[in-house]
Each structure stands twice: as structure tokens, then as C-alpha cells.
């Protein structure tokens, strides 16, 4: 056991989100330039084709979807003024907002919605493709109404209308062309508050205010610079020397967070990730001996000191995971079987188990220093209870390759839950989704027909209370089986100058565009 460490009493606690969320105080001023860091540089800004983090962040300003979601994931109107769902949960009718135009001036109509959902996204957005299988038909009686008819009730359907999942694509530009190689991809056109201006590869992306944006007086600021700075230390320097105002989650090493947080005119929030609910865990490859033995898996579960990791590596941000669900995801339930840090119990379990000295290979996540340190910490935790472990080196491509080929014993990862268990959690534990080849499948090849049945039923239940009970049962079953070693619900802090008003006010944080942001500087 680690020597009695007075970790908890350290300065970390002082950080615990003392600063108030910048409420909608004061009257918004227009004008000014917002400098944001983006890391890594997005491969492309065409949100329909590429959906990784950075693309979603910049794309969120250019494209919009029908709805927006507040921090409790309750939908609000965006391109759709109003919407209603039929009693049986089958038909969804959306009333579109009047007089909305694309950045090139062509009006936005229901035809664009149909083209986006039915043609463009179904073809090039793999997540949307699975959701669209629930859709029977899409009708556009007039320019401002769109009616979706589902094959059977699908609760989470209302939760997919955010720019990252369902961006509205201009039909007049893409119809009949090969989406992937359409030159317009380099100059994306959407309906959002900002228009694409210039992209200097390796340096910055510049967006300018959409003058005739359909919401009066918005956006407040004139333009946004997304700065590409590859080195974490340089990003911190950029903020410190005033060149950059907003550091989105994950762009600065966690060790720097307390120091930056203590700087004057600096506010911090870990809001804005509720929709994604990033949960980190270690895939366990139960095909390899001795990991097929549940005792070995739970011994590992109890051996890993996640509180230390939270404080030492993530500066006290985030929460210790209780199971496969993030606490911000709907139908999360706290009291699951005990998986707390207990090295003595771990040693006992290990003694009873079939483990006899095999070397456990840990595959770290190749996304920066924090993950590398975490792999080293886990290796040390395992050696404390007598398990011999070794870190397998890998870079981005090597990690993908090893995950697809199931060439690992334990493998770090973190995935989004998209607010609803049916959207983000079931894909990790459904037996049917265990085909090798993709990091988003059931990589640990967890086969449990009982939980599969529960997941299928819960997805199609119309009444939320029934879904809650079903998912409670699923959580208890999975946690008992310990198919994966759940680590932390990640807290990605967004650091920003206090005089930048409400950069984060929805469940998507900075990915939701800077429509309501204003700069309180004279």
C-alpha cells in the first residue's frame, strides 16, 4: 500500500470548482475577437464527413442542427422553432424557423433537412447510419415542416439533433456529387453564427461573424481564431502571454491546470461535457488466460488506486467511475456492486484466483503525457499486489492496430456516451457488437445474453420509468462481471478569461459554437 500520503489535504481540494459559473450577468457587448486553442489540428472542417473532437469544435460554429441541449440534456429549439412527438413515440414533427439562410445566401428549407439526414449523413456518418435504421420515412409537406416516421418507438431519437451528429448540409452544393472529394469541403458552408474565412495549415483557422444570422444581434463577437499549437507547454505559454483566451478541455496538461487556474482574470469550468459524458476504462482481454477468471479481473479492479489518479493526474477533476455509466448519462444509478480501491481484498482475490505470475501487458492511450503517467501508475498498482505488468509502447496507429487485432491484456480508452445508454453505452457491452476491427465495438468481447436482452428492450421502451429500471438491472449485472476496469469519469476543464462571458452554456460546451459569447472588455 502506498505510504500514508496526505494527498487529500493538499491544495487540490481548493480547486473544487469554487468559481461560480459565469451567469448571464451584465448586458452583452458586441465586437472583439475570440482566440481559442484547438488541438490536434482537425483533418477537415466538413462535419458531415469527419466527426472527431477538433472538427466538432470548429464545425459547431459553422453548422447547426435542428435542436440544442442544455446541461440536463433537455432539448431547445435551434433551426427548428418547435417540435412534437406523437403519443406512440413514432412520429416526430419539426416546425423550422423562418428566413434562415446558408452562408452563401441560399435559403435553408426542409429539403436540406431531408437531404442531410436521408442521403448525406446516412452515407458518410457511421453513427447516424445506425440511428437512421430506426427511421421508416421522412416527409417534407412544406418548406418549413419535416416529419419523421419511425419503425417503432426509439426514446433516444430526440437526442440526436446536435451539430456533431446531425449537421444540416446545403443540398444545393452536395447533391449528386461525390461527398468525400467535393471541393466545397475545404470551404464549408452552413447556417451557423460564424462563416469560414481562412485556414493556414499548422497555424490557425479563422471564422468571421455571419452578418445575416437569423437571431437578432447575435453572434456578439466579430471573429474567432482557432490556434494550432502542437506542444502542450506552448499552449500554456500562449494563454499566459495573452495570445489565447480560451483553452478547451484536454488542450493543456492537467498538471498545469492548478497553476493556470490561480492566474488573475482566469475562470474554469468542467461543465459542457454532459452530453458526451466521457468515461475512461481499461478494456480487459478475457480471451487471454488468466483474465478469463472473474477473480483476477476483480482483483485488478480493486488494485487500481483511482482516487490517487484523479488527484495526481487529473487535478481532482472528474469523478471515480461506479460502473459502465457516466453519472451525467440518463438512467445512471449510483449503488452498484462495490469496486472501490482495496489492495488487501485484491491480494486475497488474486491468491484464490488462477493467476500464477503471468506478465500482464498494459497498452496505454497515445494521447499525451497524462495517459502515459496513468499507465505507469497502474503498472505500479498491480506490482504492489504482486501482479507482474509491463507497458506496451504504441503510437496512434499502433494503438488502433492492437485494439482491432485484440493484441493486448489491458488497454486504456475513453469513450463518449452521447447522453443516452442506447446511444453510447450499449455498443460497448452488446454481444452482437463484438466483431474485432474497431475501437468502438465490444472490444473486450463481453458475451452476456441476459444484458443484451435488457439493452434491446430498454432502447425501445416509450416510458422513461421502465427504461430506468431496466438499465439499473443491466448496471448491476455488468459491474458484477467486471468485463472492464472502469477508471474515471473524465473532467475536461475549460479554462477561459473571466471577461469572456458564457463560453459554455449547453451540454456541448465549446462544441456548441460561440453564438452567445460576448467579450466584456472596453
Amino acid at each position, binding site marked *: 500500500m502506498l505510504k500514508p500520503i496526505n494527498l487529500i489535504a493538499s491544495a487540490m481540494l481548493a480547486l473544487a470548482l469554487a468559481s461560480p459559473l459565469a451567469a448571464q450577468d451584465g448586458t452583452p457587448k458586441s465586437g472583439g475577437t475570440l482566440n481559442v486553442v484547438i488541438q490536434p489540428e482537425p483533418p477537415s472542417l466538413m462535419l458531415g464527413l469527419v466527426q472527431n473532437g477538433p472538427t466538432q469544435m470548429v464545425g459547431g460554429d459553422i453548422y447547426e442542427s435542428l435542436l440544442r441541449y442544455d446541461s440536463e440534456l433537455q432539448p431547445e429549439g435551434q433551426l427548428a422553432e418547435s417540435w412534437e412527438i406523437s403519443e406512440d413515440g413514432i412520429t416526430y414533427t419539426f416546425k423550422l424557423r423562418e428566413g434562415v439562410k446558408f452562408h452563401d445566401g441560399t435559403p435553408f428549407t426542409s429539403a436540406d433537412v431531408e437531404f442531410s439526414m436521408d442521403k448525406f449523413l446516412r452515407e458518410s456518418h457511421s453513427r447516424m447510419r445506425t440511428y437512421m435504421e430506426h427511421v421508416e420515412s421522412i416527409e417534407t409537406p412544406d418548406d418549413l415542416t419535416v416529419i419523421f416516421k419511425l419503425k417503432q418507438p426509439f426514446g433516444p431519437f430526440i437526442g440526436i439533433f446536435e451539430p456533431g451528429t446531425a449537421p444540416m448540409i446545403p443540398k444545393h452544393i452536395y447533391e449528386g456529387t461525390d461527398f468525400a472529394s467535393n471541393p466545397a469541403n475545404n470551404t464549408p458552408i452552413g447556417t451557423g453564427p460564424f462563416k469560414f474565412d481562412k485556414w493556414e495549415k499548422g497555424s490557425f483557422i479563422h471564422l468571421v461573424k455571419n452578418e445575416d444570422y437569423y437571431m437578432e444581434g447575435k453572434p456578439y463577437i466579430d471573429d474567432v481564431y482557432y490556434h494550432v499549437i502542437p506542444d502542450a507547454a506552448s499552449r500554456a505559454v500562449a494563454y499566459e502571454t495573452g495570445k489565447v483566451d480560451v483553452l478547451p478541455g484536454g488542450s493543456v496538461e492537467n498538471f498545469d491546470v492548478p497553476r493556470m487556474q490561480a492566474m488573475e482574470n482566469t475562470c474554469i469550468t468542467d461543465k459542457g461535457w454532459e452530453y458526451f459524458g466521457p468515461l475512461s476504462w481499461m478494456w480487459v482481454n478475457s480471451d487471454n488466460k488468466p483474465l478469463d477468471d472473474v477473480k483476477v479481473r476483480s482483483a485488478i479492479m480493486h488494485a487500481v488506486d483511482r482516487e490517487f489518479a484523479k488527484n495526481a493526474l487529473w487535478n481532482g477533476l472528474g469523478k471515480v467511475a461506479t460502473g459502465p455509466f457516466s453519472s451525467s448519462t440518463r438512467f445512471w444509478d449510483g449503488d452498484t456492486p462495490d469496486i472501490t480501491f482495496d489492495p488487501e481484498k485484491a491480494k486475497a482475490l488474486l491468491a484464490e484466483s488462477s493467476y500464477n505470475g503471468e506478465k500482464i501487458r498494459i497498452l496505454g492511450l497515445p494521447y499525451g503525457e497524462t495517459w502515459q503517467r496513468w499507465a505507469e501508475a497502474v503498472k505500479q498498482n498491480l506490482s504492489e499486489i504482486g501482479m507482474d505488468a509491463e507497458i506496451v509502447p504504441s*503510437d496512434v496507429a499502433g494503438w488502433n492496430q492492437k485494439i482491432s487485432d485484440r493484441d493486448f491484456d489491458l488497454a486504456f480508452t475513453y469513450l463518449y456516451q452521447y447522453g443516452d445508454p442506447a446511444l453510447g453505452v450499449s455498443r460497448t457491452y452488446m454481444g452482437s457488437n463484438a466483431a474485432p476491427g474497431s475501437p468502438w465495438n465490444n472490444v473486450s468481447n463481453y458475451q452476456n445474453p441476459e444484458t443484451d436482452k435488457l439493452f434491446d428492450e430498454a432502447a425501445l421502451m416509450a416510458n422513461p420509468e421502465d427504461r430506468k429500471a431496466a438499465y439499473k438491472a443491466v448496471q448491476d449485472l455488468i459491474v458484477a462481471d467486471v468485463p472492464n476496469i472502469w477508471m474515471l469519469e473524465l473532467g475536461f476543464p475549460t479554462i477561459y478569461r473571466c471577461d469572456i462571458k458564457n463560453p459554455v452554456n449547453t451540454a456541448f460546451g465549446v462544441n456548441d459554437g460561440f453564438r452567445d459569447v460576448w467579450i466584456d472588455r472596453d
Partner: protein
Amino acid sequence: MKNFWRRFSYNRGAVIGLFILTLVILTAILAPFVFPQSPWKMVQRPFLPPFTDNALLLGTDALGRNVISGLAHGAYVSLLVGLVSTIVALAIGVPIGALAGYFAGRTDDALMRFTEFFQTIPSFALAIVLLAIFQPSLMFVIIAISIVSWPPVARLVRGEVLSLRTREFVEAATLSGLGNTQIIMRHILPNALPPIIVLASLMVAQAILLESSLSFLGLGDPNIMSWGYMIGAARTVIRTAWWLSFLPGMAILLTVLSLNLIGEGLNDALNPRLTRKTQ
């Protein structure tokens, strides 16, 4: 041998270099005894500044690991990598150079084109690619370093052999019936030794620098605590704890500097024509 030391010690820098190097070697040898625990063990809270806790003289790193234990174990790794990769590079470079120099004509051309081919590619980029291909482990780091550092050896040895080949005592050896291999091994290479020794000492220094650069970029062996790794790991927290980068950097600086100084001392000692020739 006596005046070898006299000429070597004449170069003050070389003596200082030798002193520092012996210190580093001692650290590397004594490390497992003075710091028996693995340097990866998390012993205290992170970012403990140096000289605040007498048990942990130089404080702890980002994960609360003992910095001074890391430095000591790191010494062993750096010297090991430096030495072994130089030996491997010599094992590749010396034969190629000797053959090219001794058997002039087509073999010389072919071998030299091959050497030049290697020297054209930026060696650091090649090392990165080699490690990306073979997944970084200590052995592959050594192989990558030696693959990029043998060409200068080949060029030097070729030059030496070319000039020695026409010397009269080599012609005499040919006349007294010695075979080519005997002539190369017993007449030519022993006389080509001094410049090779000098270059070898500089190569060890370069190998240590290269290893630390590779570990800094995250391409080192993740299970090995090396100085390069320590700087790389501390790079992101440079403002909160700048000493975590500074100390291993100084360790590399001193070791590499001492090797370079010794190289110069050897150079003065081994080829006397550089020192004053008395009438």
C-alpha cells in the same frame, strides 16, 4: 604508455572530463545498491521540490516518484545505450571502411555509394521511422542509433586505410608472403586505431544525445527509466516544476561534455603530430 598519460593530462579539459565520467559510471554501478526500490515506485506526493525532504534529496516528479533514484538508474541506461550502440556502429562501420579502403576500385565505389546513401537521409528522421516500425524497446533503440551512426566511422576508416595501404611496411608485409586478412588485421587496423578511438568516444556522446531526444519524443522504451524519458515526462509541467526537466538535462550535459573532452584529450595523446614536434 607513460607518455600517453603525460600528453593526455596536458589537456586540462580531458582530465576534468575523465573525472566527471568516472563519477557517472560510479553512479550507474552503485544505483541498484543505493536505491534498491524501482525508480517507478510512487513514494510521495507529486511535485515535492528538491532539498525539502531529506529522504528524497531531489524531490519527486509528476507521479510522486523519487527523482534522484530516477537519475541514478537513468545513468546506467544512458551509458549502456551509448556504449552498445557505438560498439555495434563500429562493428558495421570498421569492416565496411577497411574493405572499401583496402580493395579500391569497384568495391570501394559500391561501399562508398552505400555509405553516402545512408548519410544523405537525415539520420534523426530515419531513427524515428525505424522506432515507429519496430515499436520502441531498448534493443530497437540501440539498433536504430547504430544504423544511423555507422557512416562516419566507415568514412574515417576508409581514409586511414587508403593512406596506410601505400605505406612501405605494408608493401614489405606483402612481399614477405602475408595474406590480405593478415595484413589488414595486423598491420593496417592497429595503426588506424588512434583516430577510431577518438571518434568512438565522440560517438558514445552522440548516442546518448540521440537516445535522450528519442525518449523525449516518446519513442523510448516505456518500461525503462532514462534521462531522456524524465525530460520528456517533465516537459509538460515545465512551469510548475522546471527542475524536473533541468536536472536530467544537466546529467546528460555533464556526461556528454565529459565524453567530448576525453575525446579531445585522446586526440592530443594518440596522434602526437598535433602537439609540438621538437626539432
